């Protein structure tokens, strides 16, 4: 899949990347091709967070451009793209994005690629509430630190 945002989408992302700093709770994008795993993570987040779900990279790009999420949980093996490529693409166009890679493979090469792309987290399946809550807390800590620095 050719990963690309339109010029209009890029302007929208730029605008909302600033606005989302004021959200009380982070908005979240789940990118996961397995419906069971998507429902498991989405079901947990349902109680406290606005979230969006994509089953592949194409849907992820469209939802990202529309909602400019604060946090993206991104599976590595997607049917139409590699999650690392998608992470690099998102970080290139939205440098403040907070991306957490999620995978069933805890391979060294995946960890190395995640570090290379400067993503903010790496979660090995199985999901657990603690892993997800810790990732969200890490985002909140980063946002609060950024806010304090800019005061």
């Amino acid at each position: 899949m050719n990963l690309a945002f339109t010029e209009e989408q890029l302007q929208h992302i730029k605008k909302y990347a600033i606005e989302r700093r004021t959200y009380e709770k982070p908005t979240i994008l789940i990118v996961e091709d397995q419906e069971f795993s998507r429902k498991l993570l989405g079901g947990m987040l349902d109680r406290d967070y606005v979230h969006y779900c994509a089953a592949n990279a194409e849907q992820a790009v469209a939802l990202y451009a529309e909602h400019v999420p604060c946090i993206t949980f991104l599976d590595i093996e997607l049917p139409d793209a590699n999650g690392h490529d998608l992470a690099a693409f998102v970080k290139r166009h939205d440098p403040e994005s907070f991306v957490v890679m999620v995978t069933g493979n805890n391979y060294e090469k995946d960890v190395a690629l995640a570090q290379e792309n400067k993503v903010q987290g790496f979660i090995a399946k199985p999901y657990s509430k603690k892993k997800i809550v810790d990732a969200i807390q890490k985002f909140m800590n980063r946002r609060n630190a950024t806010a304090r620095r800019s005061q």
Partner: protein
Amino acid sequence: MTAPVDLANLRSMTDGDAEMEKALFEEFFSSFEAGIASLQPNTGEAAAEAWRKQAHGLKGMALNLGAIQLGELCAKGQDEPHADANAKSELLKNIQAEYGRVKQFLLKTINV
């Protein structure tokens, strides 16, 4: 014999919501059975990649459910995509058998 599924992780996610768990188990049955049906023990480069991807997807589902042994069998499939057809057929049988244990366990859990 140990239980085929450890639901502790999943229940940390559902907060023990029985309706949500039932819906998740039904989704698991549907997705996993479709995945097993697509797991074809053929040989050749394209078949090996299809097998690896399918096994990877099944592994992720099994691990997220808490079916560790089932996840390990699927991981073996993912790690050995170039195994011969006999070895793949044997592994597929083992995955089907373990999935049967997992399904029975989950059906009992939700009293079906």
